[in-house]
C-alpha cells in the first residue's frame, strides 16, 4: 500500500516538474470526457422532448390527414377549385367498416382572422366534435367545451385557445362575448388551458401549435362556411374544396393499432386516386423516435470517442517526449535497481494520473452542462436572434439530461485511453539499455 502511494506520489511529482505541459495534456482528455457527457446529455434531451411530443398525439390514435397534392396533378373544376382530401364518405366508411375503431373525430381546420373590437389575431378555426377535447388532452380553463347540443343545433358557439383569449380579451372575461370571423359572430363559451405543441404529422416536421386555435362545432363550420374555401393570399385568391382536414381515430386497444392502421390505409387507397391524404401512427413515430435516439447516441458517442482518441494521442506524444528527455533518469533508476517492470509502472502511473485528472475534471464539467447550455442559449438569443428563431423549437428549448451511465463510461474510457496510449512510451522507456541510458546527455 505504502509502496503504491509512494509510486503515485513520485509520478505526480514528476508531472509537476512540467506543469504547463501536464496541463495541456490533461486538457485533451478533459475535453474528450466532457464532450462524451455533454453530447449524450443533449441527445437525450432532444429525444425525450421528441418522445413527449409524440406521446401528446396519443399512442392509441391513428391520424388521417388531408394533404394538398401538387397543383400539376389536380384537375381544375368549373369553379376554378379542385376538391381533394378526406371526404365525409371516407369518414363514414372508416367508422362503419373497421370494428377496432372505437371513436372517430372529424376535424376541419381553416386559417382565419379573428377579431374583437379593434383587436385582431390570425389563427386556426377548428371545426370539431365534443370528443376533441378529450382525445387531444385539451383542458378547460374557464367555461365549457363544445357540447353535443352545440353540434346538433349548429350553434354559433366557440372555445378559445389560451393565447387567443389573452390577445383578444386582455382586460375582460371573454365568456359570453362574441368574436367576429368573416361575416359571422361566435359566442365564446369557454377558454382552454395552454397546451404543449405536439409532434408534426402528415409529413410536416414542424410541431403542431395549438396556441392560436378557435374551436367551433364542425356542423356549424360546414353550414356557415362550407367546403368551398377562399383564402386571401398576398397577390391572389386561393380556392379549394376540402371536406375534412383530419380524422383522428381512436383504436380500442394499443395492440390493434398497427393492424388498424393497415386497414385504414387500404380503405383510403381504394377511393383516392391522388396522394391527397396521409396516415400518421404516433405509435410508429414513437418506435422511430427510439431508433433515432439509438442512432443519435451512437453518432454522438463516435464524435466523443474521436475526441478522446485525439486526447490519447496527445498523451502518447507528450509521454514519448518525456521518455526521451528522461533517458538519463531511466538509466539512473535502472542502475539503482529498477526492473523493467518498475520503469513501465512508473511511466504508466504518470499517464494514468494525467488521464484520471482529465477524467475527473471532465466529469465535473459534464455535470454543469444544464446550466452552461442555458447560459449559451441566452447569449446566442441576444447575439443572433434571427438564427435562434429559425431553429426548430425542439432545439431551441432543449434541456440536456445527463445520462447516468455516461459518467462511469466516460471516466472509464479516459483511464483506458491513458493505459493504451501510455503503454508504448512506457515500454520504450523500459527497453532502454541502462548503460546506454546512463551515457545519454
Amino acid at each position, binding site marked *: 500500500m*505504502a*509502496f503504491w502511494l*509512494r509510486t503515485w506520489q*513520485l509520478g505526480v*511529482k*514528476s508531472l509537476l*516538474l512540467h506543469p504547463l505541459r501536464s496541463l495541456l495534456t490533461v486538457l485533451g482528455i478533459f475535453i474528450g470526457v466532457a464532450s462524451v457527457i455533454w453530447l449524450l446529455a443533449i441527445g437525450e434531451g432532444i429525444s425525450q422532448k421528441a418522445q413527449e411530443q409524440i406521446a401528446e398525439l396519443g399512442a392509441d390514435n391513428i391520424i388521417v390527414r388531408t394533404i394538398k397534392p401538387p397543383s400539376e396533378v389536380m384537375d381544375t373544376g368549373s369553379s376554378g377549385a379542385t376538391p381533394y382530401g378526406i371526404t365525409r364518405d371516407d369518414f363514414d366508411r372508416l367508422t362503419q367498416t373497421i370494428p377496432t375503431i372505437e371513436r372517430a373525430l372529424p376535424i376541419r381546420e381553416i386559417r382565419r382572422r379573428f377579431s374583437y373590437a379593434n383587436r385582431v389575431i390570425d389563427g386556426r378555426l377548428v371545426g370539431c366534435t365534443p370528443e376533441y377535447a378529450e382525445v387531444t388532452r385539451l383542458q378547460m380553463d374557464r367555461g365549457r367545451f363544445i357540447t353535443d347540443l352545440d353540434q346538433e343545433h349548429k350553434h354559433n358557439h366557440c372555445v378559445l385557445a389560451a393565447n387567443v383569449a389573452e390577445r383578444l380579451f386582455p382586460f375582460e372575461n371573454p365568456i359570453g362575448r362574441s368574436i367576429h370571423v368573416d361575416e359571422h359572430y361566435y359566442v365564446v363559451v369557454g377558454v382552454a388551458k395552454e397546451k404543449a405543441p405536439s409532434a408534426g404529422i402528415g409529413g410536416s416536421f414542424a410541431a403542431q401549435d395549438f396556441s392560436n386555435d378557435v374551436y367551433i362545432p364542425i356542423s356549424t363550420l360546414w353550414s356557415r362556411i362550407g367546403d368551398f374555401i377562399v383564402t386571401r393570399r398576398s397577390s391572389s385568391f386561393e380556392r379549394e374544396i376540402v371536406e375534412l382536414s383530419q380524422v383522428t381515430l381512436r383504436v380500442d386497444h394499443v395492440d390493434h393499432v398497427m393492424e388498424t392502421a393497415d386497414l385504414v390505409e387500404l380503405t383510403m387507397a381504394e377511393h383516392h386516386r391522388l396522394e391527397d391524404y396521409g396516415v400518421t401512427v404516433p405509435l410508429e413515430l414513437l418506435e422511430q423516435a427510439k431508433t433515432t435516439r439509438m442512432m443519435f447516441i451512437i453518432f454522438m458517442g463516435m464524435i466523443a470517442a474521436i475526441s478522446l482518441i485525439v486526447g490519447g494521442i496527445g498523451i502518447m506524444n507528450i509521454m514519448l517526449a518525456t521518455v526521451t528527455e528522461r533517458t*538519463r*533518469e531511466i*538509466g*539512473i*533508476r*535502472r*542502475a*539503482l*535497481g*529498477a*526492473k*523493467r*517492470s*518498475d520503469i513501465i509502472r512508473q511511466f504508466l502511473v504518470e499517464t494514468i494520473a494525467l488521464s484520471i485528472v482529465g477524467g475527473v475534471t471532465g466529469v465535473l464539467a459534464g455535470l454543469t452542462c444544464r446550466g452552461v447550455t442555458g447560459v449559451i442559449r441566452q447569449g446566442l438569443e441576444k447575439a443572433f436572434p434571427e438564427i435562434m428563431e429559425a431553429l426548430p423549437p425542439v432545439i431551441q428549448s432543449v434541456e440536456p439530461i445527463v445520462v447516468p451511465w455516461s459518467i462511469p463510461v466516460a471516466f472509464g474510457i479516459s483511464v483506458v485511453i491513458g493505459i493504451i496510449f501510455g503503454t508504448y512510451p512506457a515500454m520504450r522507456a523500459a527497453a532502454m539499455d*541502462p*548503460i546506454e541510458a*546512463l551515457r545519454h546527455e
Partner: protein
Amino acid sequence: MRLAASTRNLTKEYVLDGETVRALRGVSLDVPEGDWVAIMGASGSGKSTMLNLFACLDRPTAGTIMLGDDDVSKLNDDQLSEIRASRIGIVFQSYNLIPQLTVIENIEVPLYYQGIYSSKARKRCIDLAAMVGLADRLKHRPTQLSGGQQQRVAIARSLVNDPYFILADEPTGNLDSATTEEILQLLEKLNNDGKTIIMVTHEPDVGDRTKRIVRLRDGLVISDRPTGGDCSTEHDDD
C-alpha cells in the same frame, strides 16, 4: 578472508558494426572485504566494461563474476536488477541524482526498488545524510547543491542498501581539487570503517590514495600491486 567480489577468466565481447570487440580477455581478480582497489588504465583498456560488470549492468560473455557468495554471471535482467537494488552501491562521475527528488528521496531510491518503505528506512536515510554532512540539506533538490554536496548525496545513496562494495566511477572527475580532497577523505573514512571500495579512475593522484592499483591494458590485467613504495614508476603507463 571473505571476498567482496571476485572474477575468474572474465571475458566480454561486443559486436560493433559487425566487428567483434574484445573488451575483456580473461580477467581474474579478487577483492577482499575492506579493500580499496583502484582500477586504472587508458581509455579502451576495458575498465568501463569491468565497472559495468561489477555494477551488474551487463553480463560477461564468458568467465564468472562473484559478488560475495553470489554468482551473478548468468542472472537474467530482473535478477540483476534485484542485486543492484539490494547489494550494490554506485557513485558516478556526474553524481546522477534524480532532479525532481529531494536529497532524502534520492538516498531512498534503492530501497524503493527493493519495496522497502518504512519510517525505519527513512531514519536510516536521514542518518546517512547526516554522516556525509548534509543533515541540514534534507529537503534540498540536487540543483540547489554544489558538486561536492551532490557527490556526498550519491555516496550516502550508495550506502543505503548495505552493499557488498561501493563502486565508484571517476567519483572526483567533475570536482575541483579542494572538493576532490573532501570526497577522498570521506571515502577513506568509509574504508577505515570497513567498507570495500572499487574505484575506476585514470587520475594517478586519486589512484595513489587507494590501497591497491589494478592496471588494465587491452582487456588484460597488466599489473596488480599495493600502493605506496615503488609504484611511482607505474604512472608512466597512463
